[in-house]
């Protein structure tokens, strides 16, 4: 160890050449896309990407719905990045605990935070702690194999569920609940989730948003998909669409097409009497006020809202003083994610839940990209562009005055603490076993959800 240190010391004085070394924290899309850009824009840079879990790809593995396998094609690009000899994946490292940001700043020329937004926002209303009120984020983690969510306590032996929120995560949750379970059998959904979903009694799901159809948060592809779901009928409320017809033609194309699609199906609601066993009820202009029930939720009290403001895109909801109650034996909270402060030295805005930054710059030699910096909005490819931009910025600003130990220094710190690390080739061992187990079940993979088992396979 001392020899290596000395070598670096001598090197920093005896040669002109300094190898830039960058550390990225979080191996999701933002981290991989930033790494790709750094490797491209700086010819001799070395990029190390640290990940808390032993497995890479963040929300591509743990967020993208199992019935959307095409979206996961981006992994092929990440695999290409991982094959670059100047890149290293280092899994099972909990930054803030195993190694501090300050230590990383000493051993790397620059540090980039891309650890996403892992907590969900609370509603902060009475009754929120009743049984069977589930965090939407944890439900997604449960069916997608997030180790910490594998023990989720959820009862699907009820007929009516409500989802609070109308973003694409809310749509994913609704679709997983309403999809004929046989359609999920050949996806990479976790086996325990599939087993439970196959016994689900849910037949009615309400999707509740505080504003109106013109402010709907879901995107059109996700809406179209759920409208066409086998054995499920979407029932809109005609009253929610008062005056929408008059406005639709004044909207810009994306919002116009989304609204037109809802209006098209609104008409089908009244004419189509086909008997379908499951129902989706999108409900606008309602805010949750209170969950009701003794131990377990049995209904939700909603405030009836109206919209104020002239501009359709910025209209806001105000309570009218009227209320509505909807029965539900299960409720999901899906009103957005927030980030956490993993290390006390990171400037952090606790109120909005993200790292304080100006266009990706946190402070000297510290940057942030993806949801940890922008907040949890946008599809995977808004994250891509953001990460490309920050990667380019970092390349320009690299402070190359002295050589830094990089991975050698990091290994030393982790070895002292007895933290085993999982490199990319070790992950490939986990990957191989997951695919083999999946093959037996007719699935692309069966995800391992036990961290100890992952480590056992990786470190063998």
């Amino acid at each position: 160890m001392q020899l290596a240190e000395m070598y670096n010391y001598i090197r920093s004085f005896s040669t002109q050449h300094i190898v830039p070394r960058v550390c990225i924290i979080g191996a999701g899309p933002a981290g991989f896309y930033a790494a790709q850009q750094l490797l491209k824009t700086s010819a001799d840079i070395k990029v190390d990407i640290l990940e808390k879990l032993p497995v890479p790809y963040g929300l591509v593995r743990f967020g993208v719905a199992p019935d959307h396998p095409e979206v996961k094609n981006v992994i092929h690009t990440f695999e290409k990045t991982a094959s670059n000899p100047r890149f290293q994946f280092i899994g099972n490292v909990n930054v803030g605990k195993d190694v501090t940001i300050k230590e990383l700043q000493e051993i790397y020329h620059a540090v980039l935070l891309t650890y996403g937004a892992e907590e969900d926002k609370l509603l902060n209303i009475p009754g929120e702690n009743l049984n069977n009120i589930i965090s939407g984020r944890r439900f997604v983690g449960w069916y997608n194999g997030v180790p910490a969510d594998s023990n989720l306590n959820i009862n699907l032996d009820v007929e009516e569920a409500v989802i609070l929120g109308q973003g694409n995560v809310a749509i994913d949750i609704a679709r997983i609940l309403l999809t004929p379970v046989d359609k999920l059998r050949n996806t990479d959904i976790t086996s325990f989730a599939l087993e439970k979903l196959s016994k689900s009694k849910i037949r009615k799901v309400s999707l509740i948003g505080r504003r109106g159809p013109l402010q709907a948060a879901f995107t059109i592809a996700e809406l179209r998909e759920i409208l066409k779901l086998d054995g499920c009928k979407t029932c809109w409320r005609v009253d929610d669409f008062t005056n929408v017809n008059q406005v639709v033609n004044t909207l810009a194309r994306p919002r116009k097409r989304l609204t037109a699609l809802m209006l098209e199906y609104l008409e089908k609601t009244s004419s189509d009497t086909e008997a379908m066993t499951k129902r989706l009820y999108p409900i606008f202009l309602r805010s949750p006020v209170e969950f009701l029930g003794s131990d377990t939720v049995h209904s939700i009290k909603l405030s009836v809202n109206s919209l104020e403001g002239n501009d359709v895109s910025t209209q806001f909801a105000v309570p009218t003083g009227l209320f509505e109650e909807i029965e539900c034996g299960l409720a999901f909270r899906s009103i957005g994610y927030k980030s956490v402060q993993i290390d006390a030295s990171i400037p952090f805005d606790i109120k909005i839940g993200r790292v304080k930054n100006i266009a990706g710059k946190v402070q000297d030699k510290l940057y942030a990209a993806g949801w940890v910096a922008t907040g949890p909005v946008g599809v995977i490819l808004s994250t891509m562009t953001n990460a490309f931009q920050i990667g380019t910025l970092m390349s320009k600003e690299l402070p190359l005055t002295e050589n830094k130990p990089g991975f050698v220094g990091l290994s030393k710190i982790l070895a002292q603490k007895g933290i085993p690390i999982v490199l990319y080739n070790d992950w490939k061992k986990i990957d191989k076993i997951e695919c083999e187990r999946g093959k037996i079940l007719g699935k692309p993979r069966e995800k391992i959800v036990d961290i100890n088992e992952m480590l056992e396979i990786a470190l063998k």
Partner: protein
Amino acid sequence: MALVNHLKKFSRSVLNIASNYSKYTSNTMMPFLQTTRGASTTQPLSEKQEVSITFVKANGERIKAKGNVGDTILDIVVNNEIDLDGYGACEGTLTCSTCHLIFSKEVYDALPDKPTDEELDMLDLAYELTDTSRLGCQIVMTKKLDGIEVRVPSTINDARA
């Protein structure tokens, strides 16, 4: 008893593999996509007709590339390893809009197929959306399209509507 059930389940799942697999492919591939892909792979070698296309980047850089009749524009970008960051992230499965291209009105009107709802849905998430925007993965090159120019938006990007 539990073991018997387990074994039953196991054999059922094994028997299901074949049928599940075919379901899987037909569900995830749009029918027109299959035709697209089919056209580019079933083209007999001897009948391959070369076509060219010029990509004009936002900074004015022009990249001329060659492909064959039946290739999609995405195929041409991939086969020629053209340096367009993030282009075609979902690999032509209509789940992103990173292969967004802008055509002139004349070329747009001359394109053989009109965009489907699903293509328009993805285009709606693209920045710099125009009335003559298309996704490169959906445009199959024909002899008639030989020599066309297409504009690559400055931010290949998705955003919420």
